[in-house]
């Protein structure tokens, strides 16, 4: 069972992130849960493309000719940048909400103001 350790880590991280998003009441804590979920998905995609005994897919002074697959790494590059964009937008929303409502508790932000 220990040879599957990256996939077990993916499952544990997904559960931590999902429980945080569903059960917490502060906007900043929900944002941290979204970030943990994103890290779990990126780890899963990169772990799918591993070959035993392979090196990084770069030809400059490489130790051997058996390389891991390069396509999942390209997809994960895009996903990380989109996570950064999402986090920046949610943080700016939290600042404007705190200025208008006085709190960041999602139970108290109920009606549209103005």
């Amino acid at each position, binding site marked *: 069972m220990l040879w599957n350790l990256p996939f077990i880590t993916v499952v544990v991280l997904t559960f931590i992130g999902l429980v945080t998003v569903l059960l917490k009441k502060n906007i900043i804590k929900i944002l941290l849960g979204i970030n943990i979920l994103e890290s779990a998905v990126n780890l899963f995609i990169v772990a799918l493309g591993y070959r035993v005994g392979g090196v*990084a897919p*770069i*030809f*400059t*002074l*490489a130790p051997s*000719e058996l390389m891991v697959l390069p396509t999942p790494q390209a997809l994960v*590059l895009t996903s990380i*940048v989109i996570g950064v964009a999402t986090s*920046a937008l949610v*943080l*700016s929303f939290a*600042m*404007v909400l705190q*200025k208008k409502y006085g709190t960041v508790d999602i139970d108290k932000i109920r009606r549209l103001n103005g």
Partner: protein
Amino acid sequence: MRMSRIVRTAADILFPAILIFGLYIVAHGHLTPGGGFQGGAVIATGGALVIVAFSYKEVTEWLSKNVLMGQEVTGLVGFIGVGLLALAFGQVFFFNYLANSGSLFGIPVPYGINAGELNTAGVIPLMNFAVGIEVWGGLTIVILYLLSGLEKEGC
């Protein structure tokens, strides 16, 4: 608020070193691990060091937001322009028209494990520079806007 004299001097000395290291990562994107996005993030971290060491009021006197926004727009327009220029050569959009051709970045590469040469990969270094400039301007302007929304200037 302004930090002490030791922190300000260290930030003054460290920022050119971080800038040159980030530009090295961007420029050698086709030979070593790295590329446009990673190098742009490194340079934006150096910018954040300067903004934190000197207070926000001082930094906005000599770093205007319009210049950074123009830098970000130039990066995206340059990226699309390099792709559209392939239509003028008779090929499809985003074709690599400079690889293996003998002009600007076009020396052919021998097959297998070799030591790497800077002059080689065609359109890819131009795209790396465009994306690096876009990410640098974009991340620095996000830090400046988030700091401008604070109310009391004691932070």
